[in-house]
């Protein structure tokens, strides 16, 4: 069993597991932190951004000033933002049989894999994952496509030039493989390869492996995957949550509040919290805006996946009421949603207000507009809730900034204490995790609690690494047909342990193995005489059973006598005995672990002796 690690981002994984004869990709996360190196894409021409000075080398060489711009000491690439794809060189991705998706954040690289690697397999995901994943992709494509950028920078990617650049550009990995966003056509094609699955649905892969998604509680429709054969079991735990209540979030009054977010996920919870807060704080006149090309779909979709929600919310549907209170917010006009800042929004826009919009990287989407608009006033606040991006890096191209920043990551995923507890309960034989989790975070090196601690120690992986997982498969399931089972003769060897020798025909189809009774020996073709001696040559590949036991000489001699042998002489030797049948010129050497019959070429005699010997031995 081998694990190929294709992503370096611990929460946006992409791994390939080779297990038995199958190749399974676990998640398909897209590392979008690479976009932080790019300048934001403004929706409306931004004089500030377009007037940033070009960057020049220390020696004054300014040949890169078209591609690189400087802002408050940071250097940014002025180009269409690019993403860091999962590793594609480590393993031939066209050999991947299936891709298992655990939640909608971990499928964003799917079009790159399914459309450009020769992939011909199937993707498995739950229905909410697919629907919401589609919304996230649609939003991403829309954000990037609606602000076409004439320039595409590539000069800086040259290895010799990249060396000269300041951090973090200098240290960015594999920039040559960075790609611009996929198209909607590729998204649709990728999503058409997904097969929907339900929680606890057992899916057979080629009869060799069974995979099952289990609810992970992290996001709507999110799952952990169990990959098992009859004797081995791999649990893939990705983004799980034990959280049942949501952290209360305080939203401050005065000025505007900007919440950069994905169009689905935490936003539902934020809306629910705000819904309760606004009423109690008497702020019901403050409008909430949700701006995303997929805002409408996202809000609608969230209401129809009742079966995938926690119990509390499920019971609402039975009343029947919409499971999320944002339905009421929309009905009472407190929450309004728009596809973009253009169109109706500009007419309805009232301040102060709370705006939810993407993209959380602050590099593209409507959020760029609000950052430019509100950044200069200290009355306004931006609240970061998505933990995927470092908020300081996200804000870098907007410096200097007067706006208040609150970093309040809402990460409902398991924390290290919960993971330790989980591992204690599950008692896995081996644990594999991203290397980031096996040591304390670099910024808090004393926090020994912020790492995964288990026995035996977890094996860690990093991008572009191949792990050979140290366990050996030893057994496989096989079915014994009832007719064959009936013919077996069990024999008790030790108390509680019985044995039966099995001679059977092995049938293997679709990786399922079946033992059938051996065919009846073919009737000898009578009448016709065989012409060639070679036809009579027995098939030596028919294995005879092994023998075990020992032969007690006295009893053996008695048996011989009973069967009409006379003139028997027994001699003792160093290791055993020799039984002599003088008349037949036959000699039988009997030792603890061997018997040797030496005789003339008298087949009848030999067979008689053989059968008498076998009476004392057990066959295996």
């Amino acid at each position, binding site marked *: 069993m081998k694990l190929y690690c294709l992503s370096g981002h611990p929460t946006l994984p992409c791994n390939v597991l080779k297990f038995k004869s199958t190749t399974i990709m676990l998640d398909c996360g897209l590392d979008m932190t690479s976009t932080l190196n790019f300048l934001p894409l403004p929706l409306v021409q931004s004089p500030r951004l377009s007037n940033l000075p070009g960057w020049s080398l220390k020696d004054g060489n300014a040949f890169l000033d078209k591609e690189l711009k400087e802002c408050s000491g940071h250097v940014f690439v002025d180009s269409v933002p690019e993403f860091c794809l999962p590793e594609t060189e480590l393993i031939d991705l066209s050999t991947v049989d299936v891709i298992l998706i655990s939640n909608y954040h971990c499928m964003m690289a799917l079009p790159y894999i399914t459309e450009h690697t020769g992939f011909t397999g199937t993707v498995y995901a739950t229905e909410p994952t697919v629907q919401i994943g589609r919304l996230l992709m649609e939003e991403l494509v829309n954000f990037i496509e609606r602000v076409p950028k004439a320039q595409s920078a590539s000069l800086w990617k040259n290895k010799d030039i990249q060396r000269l650049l300041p951090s973090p550009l200098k240290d960015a990995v594999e920039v040559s493989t960075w790609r611009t966003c996929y198209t909607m056509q590729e998204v649709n094609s990728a999503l058409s390869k997904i097969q929907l699955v339900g*929680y606890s649905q057992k899916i057979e892969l080629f009869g060799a492996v069974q995979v099952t998604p289990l609810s992970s509680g992290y996001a709507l429709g999110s799952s952990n995957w169990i990959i098992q054969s009859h004797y081995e079991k791999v649990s893939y735990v990705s983004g799980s949550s034990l959280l049942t209540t949501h952290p209360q979030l305080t939203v401050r009054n005065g000025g505007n509040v900007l919440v950069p977010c994905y169009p689905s996920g935490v936003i539902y919870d934020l809306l629910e919290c705000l819904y309760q807060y606004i009423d109690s704080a008497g702020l019901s006149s403050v409008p909430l805006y949700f701006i995303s090309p997929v805002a409408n779909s996202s809000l609608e979709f969230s209401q*129809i996946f009742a079966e995938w929600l926690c119990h509390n919310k499920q019971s609402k*549907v039975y009343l029947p009421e919409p499971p999320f209170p944002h339905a009421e917010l929309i009905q009472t006009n407190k929450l309004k949603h728009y596809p973009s800042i253009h169109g109706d929004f500009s007419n309805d826009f009232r301040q102060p207000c709370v705006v939810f919009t993407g993209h959380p990287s602050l590099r593209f989407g409507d959020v760029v507009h609000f950052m430019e608009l509100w950044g200069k006033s200290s009355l306004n606040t931006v609240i970061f809730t998505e933990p995927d991006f470092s908020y300081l890096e996200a804000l870098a191209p907007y410096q200097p900034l007067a706006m208040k920043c609150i970093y309040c990551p809402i990460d409902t995923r398991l924390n290290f204490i919960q993971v330790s507890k989980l591992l204690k309960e599950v008692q896995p034989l081996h644990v594999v995790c991203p290397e980031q989790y096996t040591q304390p975070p670099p910024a808090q090196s004393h926090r020994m609690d912020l790492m995964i601690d288990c026995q035996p120690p977890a094996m860690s992986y990093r991008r572009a690494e191949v792990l050979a997982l140290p366990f050996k498969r030893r*057994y*496989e399931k096989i079915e014994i047909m009832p007719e064959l089972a009936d013919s077996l003769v069990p024999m008790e060897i030790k108390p509680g342990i019985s044995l039966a020798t099995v001679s059977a025909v092995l049938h293997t189809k679709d990786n399922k193995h079946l*033992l059938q009774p051996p065919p009846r020996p073919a009737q000898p073709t009578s009448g016709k005489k065989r012409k060639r001696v070679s036809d009579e040559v027995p098939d*030596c590949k028919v294995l005879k059973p092994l023998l075990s036991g020992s032969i007690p000489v006295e009893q053996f001699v008695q048996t011989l006598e009973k069967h009409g042998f006379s003139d028997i002489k027994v001699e003792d030797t160093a290791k055993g005995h020799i039984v002599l049948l003088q008349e037949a010129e036959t000699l039988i050497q009997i030792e603890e672990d*061997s018997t040797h019959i030496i005789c003339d070429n008298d087949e009848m005699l030999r067979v008689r002796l053989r059968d008498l010997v076998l009476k004392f031995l057990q066959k295996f």
Partner: protein
Amino acid sequence: MPEIRVTPLGAGQDVGRSCILVSIAGKNVMLDCGMHMGFNDDRRFPDFSYITQNGRLTDFLDCVIISHFHLDHCGALPYFSEMVGYDGPIYMTHPTQAICPILLEDYRKIAVDKKGEANFFTSQMIKDCMKKVVAVHLHQTVQVDDELEIKAYYAGHVLGAAMFQIKVGSESVVYTGDYNMTPDRHLGAAWIDKCRPNLLITESTYATTIRDSKRCRERDFLKKVHETVERGGKVLIPVFALGRAQELCILLETFWERMNLKVPIYFSTGLTEKANHYYKLFIPWTNQKIRKTFVQRNMFEFKHIKAFDRAFADNPGPMVVFATPGMLHAGQSLQIFRKWAGNEKNMVIMPGYCVQGTVGHKILSGQRKLEMEGRQVLEVKMQVEYMSFSAHADAKGIMQLVGQAEPESVLLVHGEAKKMEFLKQKIEQELRVSCYMPANGETVTLPTSLSIPVGISLGLLKREMAQGLLPEAKKPRLLHGTLIMKDSNFRLVSSEQALKELGLAEHQLRFTCRVHLHDTRKEQETALRVYSHLKSILKDHCVQHLPDGSVTVESILIQAAAPSEDPGTKVLLVSWTYQDEELGSFLTSLLKKGLPQAPS
């Protein structure tokens, strides 16, 4: 011999009070727990004394499965669990769990409040009963206990309807509940994979019907409704609150919109609005089209269809009213029917199956004078139309499903005996699958053959499979191994491994035969002649001439020796182990015949 036993307590050669007991590998499962619309006495519920005479329900049953929310499939549930007494798990899908208690409460109200029945289950009992429900997802494999697992498949029919696979080890039964094999305006078609169950228990409501195309029926329906309202008549469509109602509402809504009609359409009972709401929230259970378009327009938000008020029935002028229940056996639909029956301008359209004994069944069978309560006679002058919109599979659909699942045998329930007989023959002849149709209380026993799963050591399996891949392996090969049985752990390993694991030494049995040959040449030359002779005959075997002068065939050793007393005779010592028995024996008899004359 293991066997599967099936006993219908209801729905055996009948439609109504579906309730089927299945015993599979020592597990007992009850499929559905319905009431009978045609009876108002004890016969309306299944006869649970069949089980209780031998002990408590909870002890006997491992679980109860409800296929969908129709009362003939779940109507007896509170009586069963709260009054007879069952505390085990009850499985159903999420939409069924949501809608079932509402219909039960409705049913209770009619029985107790309207008909004044005593000793009926109470609202509290419905609530308590629903607490025992465990909701399942489609295709989710639910482990009822360590051995028994169940899995739901989409059945169409009504919102949340499911077929269930019940599986213990390698034995399985599929129960279809009610299902529909053609997608309609709001639901998809039933689907099941090739799960090859030992037994498929299927409904057979339309066992003999092969329905014409849906399009025709729909056109017919719209034409009739349109004509009636055009001439100022009133149209009554008795429906059940959920299911066909939504289908026909969508149909009329789009027609009204297209034709720009102004005649009012009403939907009786406050249930409907709620009902439509369920459809909105359970969009993933509906069909592809609705799922795709719901963001733009939710198909269950109707513009033309309004809530009905009892007073509207007396309004003059045309109107269309959907009223519950669907078989005209009680409630609002019956009230409206009584009001409108006398006018020949009016029309009642029965869109679904009616159980014997109901008013619906009577008027469909042509009765025009109905005896009502209090010896009143109601003359039916209004037009009566029947249009099969119920989402049951027809004969073709049933055959199709049997073909999909590929069961070893089929058992028919939920249909009339005569029609079942026809379908039974059809299945046995066309699909060559044995088919049963037990009456209520009659038990069908099916023997099953069980293969035994054991673990085979990978080394042994791989060795065998590798040899199976060799080109000459045309004949089936024999695998030889030892089955070690320890407690309930069965493992098949190679003989060597078995010996090793048990700490036993191998006992080697060896034979050495002396074959006398007349040969005056030297031993070495004799050996060489033996070599070339064997080499020419045993083409498929490894024959070697070793430097020490001996010859080997596979692992059989042949040595030539010269006995001192007779120089004209040579002795060949052929030595082999028990494992090479056949070949050794063959070689000695071959050599005994002598060597061919060497070319001089």
